[in-house]
Structures are given as structure tokens and as C-alpha cells.
């Protein structure tokens, strides 16, 4: 199993979720994060003083999937989150050793 963690543009969340659901992924967890990267932030002016907003709002999507679904998930996210503009984000794949569904105690792929 893997955790596929994607950093995406916030307004792409619905599309990403739909793409993952279409794959048969039934659960995911999202977090509001701020990203720093090649995408330039912007300069704001507050009372005559410039200040750089270099961290941009992003959404982190974490989804635990069985090994055979990893590539599908990556593809689904890539396609649905892409705008072609800088700042589209990243997908990271992290090993997942164990998963437990708290309610039932089921483990691993049964738990996803």
C-alpha cells in the first residue's frame, strides 16, 4: 500500500476528488496548506509598505491506496489537477505499511 500525497491548486479539488472516485477510491483526506515553489507569490502593499506573499494557498490530498492502484491514482490526479500553469503542484508516493479502520478493526486493503 502507498499513501499518494498530492499538493494541488485549491480550485481543482472537486475535479481531483471526482477523478479518484471514478477509480474506485472511497476515501481521502485533505488539508489546507501553503506552498512555496517556482510559482511566484505576489507583492502586496499595506499602508505604503510592500510585502511579499510567497506562500500560496494549496490543498494537500492524501489518499491511501493498494499498490496496484497507485499508478491509476497518480494518473487521475495528474490529469484532473493540471492547468498547465506553473504551480500545478506535486504528487508524492510514500510507502504505507499498515492501515486500520478504527470502527471495525479491519486492516490493510480492507481498511481503505
Amino acid at each position: 500500500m502507498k499513501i499518494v500525497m498530492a499538493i494541488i491548486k485549491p480550485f481543482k479539488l472537486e475535479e481531483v476528488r471526482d477523478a479518484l472516485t471514478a477509480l474506485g477510491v472511497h476515501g481521502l483526506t485533505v488539508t489546507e496548506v501553503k506552498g512555496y515553489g517556482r510559482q511566484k507569490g505576489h507583492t502586496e502593499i499595506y499602508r505604503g509598505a510592500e510585502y511579499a506573499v510567497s506562500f500560496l494557498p494549496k490543498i494537500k490530498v492524501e489518499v491511501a491506496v493498494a499498490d496496484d492502484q497507485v499508478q491509476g491514482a497518480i494518473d487521475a490526479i495528474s490529469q484532473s489537477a493540471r492547468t498547465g500553469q506553473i504551480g500545478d503542484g506535486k504528487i508524492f508516493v510514500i510507502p504505507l505499511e499498515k492501515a486500520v479502520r478504527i470502527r471495525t478493526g479491519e486492516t490493510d486493503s480492507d481498511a481503505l
Partner: protein
Amino acid sequence: MVQRLLTRSAGAAIALGLMSVAALAQDAEVAEVSTELPADGQFVLNTLLFLIGGFLVMWMAAGFAMLEAGMVRSKNVSMQCLKNIGLYSTAGLMYWIIGYNLMYEGVDGGWFGSPGPIGIPDPATEGGDYAVASDWFFQMVFCATTASIVSGTIAERMKLGPFLVFVVILTGILYPITGAWQWGEGWLYEMGFSDFAGSTIVHSVGGWAALTGALIVGARKGKYSEDGKVNALPGSSMPLATLGTFILWLGWFGFNGASQLAIGTIEDAASVATVFMNTNLAAAGGVIAAIILSQVIYKKVDLTFALNGALAGLVSITAEPLAPSPALAVAIGAVGGAIVVFAVPLLDKLKIDDVVGAIPVHLLAGIWGTLVVPLSNGDANFVTQIIGIVAIGAFTVVASGIVWLIIKAIMGLRVSEEEESLGLDKVEVGVEAYPEFASGAGRV
């Protein structure tokens, strides 16, 4: 004028008194005359009424600002605040430079007066029934209200510059012209149209201008899906929206109450009091109707409908807050509240994107309120009411439509798609409303 002195001044009382000294103590008629306020007292009190009414209506500018700040998403809140303080200031200047005189100076049954800056008469020599400056102040805040109505509807996508340019025209020219027809004693007034405090003159005019604006600028991105689905874009802060509504409700006592235009006699004072009572009853009726309907239809009570219901009740009673019985006032307001609950989804079906509900509240309830004046006011009749509603509507739709289109051609009206999704605060204001809380980025 002699008549006025006879009925108003203590001097008259003396004169009369001298003519029938012996009769004085017994003669109630005479004693009654002598209880009146001297003319200067009436001048002072009428002026005070305008000033109190005026500052209450001025406060409505804050009400609109808070209501709208609460109803837009957090990424557009600073802009909404800026538009509101900007429009109030613009109205305050334009109505001095040109609007007041265009509306009141020498209309004489015609279509408009003579544009030009108003001067303040020297207080030492000023005559009349009230201070001119107090009337200007009171009329100016009405003019500003009209512009406030527009800002809510076209929120979250229109640029600041074009909006303020529209406000310049609306408050300097459009509102004063239709205002002149009625309150400037123009042709509509002569025909017998009746609109006590401006359900049509103020609220519908603002509503029409908002409607044309909404049609021309288009809906917010994401509001209507291609498959016809209406997407809710909930506002950022319900307590601010509630605060704004309470502010507006408070201000409305000035709006309607001081539209009696005088408070120097028992009759006028009692009328102002009746207006206060009916105004409150109508608003309460609007709230309760909206609460009940929203519970019945949706099984939940939508706070924003209750808030809009209060305002719709207030707009509905504005055309005639004096004549109705309390029961009728409640009923008129309650229908206003119902209009909100039915018209908001209807507008969404028509893909008219009105962020704060200004069209149901100000335009539709304004029409409703104007229409039912003859129910209680014998001097009004339905035909003239309809003529007034249609004439003012037609003029405002056409004129404001042209103005919107010209501004669109020259400056453009809306921000780019990307800017809209970033939020106007980042793009045009540079100051986020809640820099520490909201990401300003789509809601999860």
C-alpha cells in the same frame, strides 16, 4: 403666509386672546390654538428631524457594508468594504455638485431641475420651515442608499473603478432625475403618484440598476454549472450580515420616520410615531414570514432569508408607512418576506446572480410596497402607482443599461477569471480582509 402666522405663532395667540380676553379661560377653541409651537420652534424641530433621520440613514451605509461583507466570500471582503465607503463618499460629493439641484431646483411638474452645486444659505437670514442644509443631508443619504443597493448585487466580480464611475452617474444624474419626477414635484407627482419614503424612488431604482448591472456583468464564476445546477457560494460571516441587517433596520426609522418631513405639530409628531410603529411591524412581519416559509419549504430556517425578510418587510412598507393599520402593516411586510423566499431561487433559475439578494429585497418588495399604497391611502390609485413603477423602471433600466454598457466598452466591468478566483482583495485592494485566517482559496 398670514394664515401660517395665525395658526403657528404665539403672536397670533396673543392677538386672538386680546380679541376675546374674557372668553379665554372657557373657550377651548382659543386655548387650543395657543398651545401651538411658535414658528421658529417648528423650524428647529423640523431641522432636527432631518438631522436625526439623516444620521440614521447615513448609518445605513454601514449596514449595507456589513451585510455585504458578510455575504461575500472572504477573498472579496476588503473590496466590498472599499466599494461601500467609496460609493457613500461618491454619492456625497455628486449629490452636492449636481444631484440635489437636478432633483429639486425648479422641476415644476417637469422632468428634472437645474443641475449645479447647492449653496448653503446664510443661517442668519435663512427662512423656510427647516434648514436647507439639513434637507440636503437627509436627501443625500437617500441618494447614497440607492447606490448601496447596487454594490451588493454585483459583488465579487466587478472591478472597483467601473463601479465607482457608475455610482457617479447614478447618484449625480439617474437617481436625481427619477427623484425629480416625484419628490421634486415633477410630472409624476402632479399625476398623483404616491411613494412616502421611496419604495420606488429609492429602492426600486437601486434594484433596477442592480439588475441591469447583474445582467451585463454576468454571474460569478462557479455559481451556475453548465448542467443547470445552482451552486451555493456561502458568505463569509453570518454575524456581520446580521449586524448589517440590524443597522439597516435601525436606520429605517430615520428613512421612513423623517420622511414625514416635519415634526413641529401634534399631527406631525403623531404621524412620525405611527410611521415608526408600522415600520417595525412590517419588518417583524417580514422576518416571521421568511422564517416560517423557509422552515416549511426547506425544513431548515435559512438565516439569510430571515435577514432578507426583515429588509423586504421594511422596503415594502416604505411607500406608505403612515396610513396602514398595524395589521395591514404586518401583512404588507409579511408578503415582502415571502417575496424573498420565492424570488431568490427564481432569480437563480434565471441565472441572475445577485450576491446579497438586493433584487428581491429592494426591487420586488419595492414594487409590491408601491402597488399596495392605495389599500390604505385614499389619495393614491392603482393606475397611477403602476404608471409610476413602470415609468421609473423603464427609465432606470434603459439609462443604467446604457451607462453600464458604455463603461464596459471603455474600462471593462469585470476582473479576469483568474483574478476572480484569486479574489478581488488580492488583485485590486492589496489588503486581504482576514490575512491571518482565511486562505482566500476555495473552500473545502
